[in-house]
């Protein structure tokens, strides 16, 4: 399996605090790579560097295409999603609460629709070419809503959905930009066991059916151990372990980082 993302010597400093210290790891296509670690280990900071919200102090991040690689450092802000096709979700859900579920998914397809609407001109003239494109976008939204079983609530406000559904909606909204890399920040936080199981199913579906690699930050070990192909463990900004889920479970360093060392 080919490499999708390689992070090389990533360092992020906030003043005197080193949040990420010389971190290197790889993530592969069609695999779920989990980043775990105790609170404050720097997991979300890694995401913020990858998705252009922070500019790393040092180091490189490359996204591999068939024969070329692009440096994520070059893209900031909205271009990470638009050009590099890296999508993310947030630790605290960030939907558009007062907009309908369907509208949420259409905003994710903003850039294609903007071109189709001739930067609003064709749209104002109500041309057929635009209406067809819009219908395609709605169909795509329906495809994803069918998968997470929310089609019947498509016209309700996103903010009115139950918490678990909001989590799933945020993930499929990110999928609507057709990302090559999907970064999920604690998608299982606050979910009950049944909802967690559904989430696992959704992530496995994305992994196998779509050409998308998944990078996952998670505290819920049932999720991490159940679906991860590869686990990277951080502590105080440093990588302390890397391996499969089973290897991680039995690693002495990981257990020490989580439970402390016997004195």
């Amino acid at each position, binding site marked *: 399996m080919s490499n999708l993302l390689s992070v090389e010597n990533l360092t992020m400093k906030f003043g005197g605090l080193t949040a990420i210290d010389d971190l290197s790891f790889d993530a592969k296509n069609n695999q779920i790579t989990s980043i775990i670690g105790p609170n404050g280990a720097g997991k979300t900071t890694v995401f913020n560097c990858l998705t252009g919200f922070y500019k790393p102090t040092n180091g490189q991040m490359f996204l591999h295409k068939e024969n070329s690689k692009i440096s994520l450092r070059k893209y900031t802000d909205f271009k990470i*999603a638009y050009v590099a096709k890296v999508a993310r979700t947030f630790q605290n859900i960030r939907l558009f*609460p007062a907009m309908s579920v369907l509208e949420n998914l259409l905003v994710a397809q903003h850039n294609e629709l903007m071109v189709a*609407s001739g930067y*609003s001109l064709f749209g104002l003239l109500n041309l057929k070419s635009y209406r067809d494109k819009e219908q395609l976008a709605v169909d795509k939204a329906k495809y994803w809503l069918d998968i997470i079983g929310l089609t019947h609530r498509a016209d309700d406000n996103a903010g009115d959905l139950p918490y678990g559904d909001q989590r799933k909606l945020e993930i499929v909204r990110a999928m609507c930009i057709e990302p090559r890399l999907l970064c999920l920040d604690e998608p299982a936080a606050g979910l009950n066991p049944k909802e967690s199981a559904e989430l696992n199913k959704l992530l496995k579906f994305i992994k196998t059916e779509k050409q998308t690699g998944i990078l996952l930050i998670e505290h819920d070990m049932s999720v991490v151990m159940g679906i991860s192909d590869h686990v990277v463990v951080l502590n105080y900004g440093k990588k302390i372990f890397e391996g499969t889920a089973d290897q991680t479970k039995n690693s002495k360093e990981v257990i020490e980082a989580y439970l402390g060392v016997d004195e």
Partner: protein
Amino acid sequence: MEKKDIIQSFKDSLFTGLIALALFGPIVGLRTASKGEGLFITPQWGVVFLLVGLCILGRFLINLNSVRKTEITSFSKFTSKFSAITEDKAKHFAITAILFAVVFPFLPFTDRYFMDVAIMILTYIMLGWGLNIVVGLAGLLDLGYVAFYAVGAYSYALIATTFGWSFWICLPLAGLFAAFFGILLGFPVLRLRGDYLAIVTLGFGEIIRIILINWYEVTNGPDGITGIPRPSFFGLPFKRSPDEGETSFHLFFNLEYSTMHRIIFLYYLILVLALITNYFTLKIRKLPVGRAWEALREDEIACKSLGVNPTNTKLTAFAIGAMFGGFAGSFFATRQAFISPESFTFIESAIIVAIVVLGGMGSQTGVVLASIFLIGITEMFRDLEQYRMIAFGGAMVLIMVFKPKGILANRKPTILMHGDKK
């Protein structure tokens, strides 16, 4: 209801009365009048007690209403009817309102005064609709909207008086100028949000006004610009005696000359301009750019994570909102035939923002209702002279108490998957 509650609400309303007394006492109670050699204070305690009494009564009724589950007073019946206005019913209301607006100039009771008030209300409706794009849809609180109104008015006035071009050429130009200024304001405030954005836009509004006052060579300073050409009816001017080789409106249609012709024409002009604004906004709301505006209002960070360019999105909102402000401004200039910086003070911005917010952010029909309510009430109490702003304040308080989210607060999705089933 328990006795305790009544006593509690009575106490509360007495406290309200105390605040009202502290405010009205000096403001209304002590009136200065110049008699002979100096200023003398004429106390008018009667008016103060009347106002304080009204405040106590009003507060008491509101308290009772919130304590009691059952509604007995006609007062609360009125408010429940008021809150029953929803966006669904608003559609019927909109059609009726447009029909009424079209026949309004020919109704038997319509006189010159009514026409003037109607034109004023329509101007505010148009400004409200323009600002609704910026504040209601994109969620960018703009307290300096009057600046674009001023830019539109001055562009029209200067182009028309300098080059003598007709209204129909100057109107789009004025809109373009205003849109340009919208982008000019947009750039420095891209990173700002909420209160900070409000302060900078407020400053921008003042800067424009101060430039208009001080740039004497171009804007003629505080003296303003006079003799702004009136619009013509497809080339036919509204004049009693047209110039050589010209036909005026009343001669062409073989009518008795009347100043009302022009007023009625101006009325239809602003009605059409306002309806264009409305149509455009309703259309663009359903396009990707409109949805991006609303998404930006909801969560800017999420927008970025989905690849929506926040810079372009904000700038288009500012530019389009400003453009409609500019159109309204040129209408204002051609209607008044005289403009000066005094017409573009902060209070105008505040009134337009009040109309948008009280109408219900993003609701087109809400803007209409709020304009009629706020401007209409203020006009109704014109006889009160300087106290009529109290009526304006009172109208605002009424809306805030009964409809804290605005007259029409429910938003309809821009696109439906399952069709309109409700």
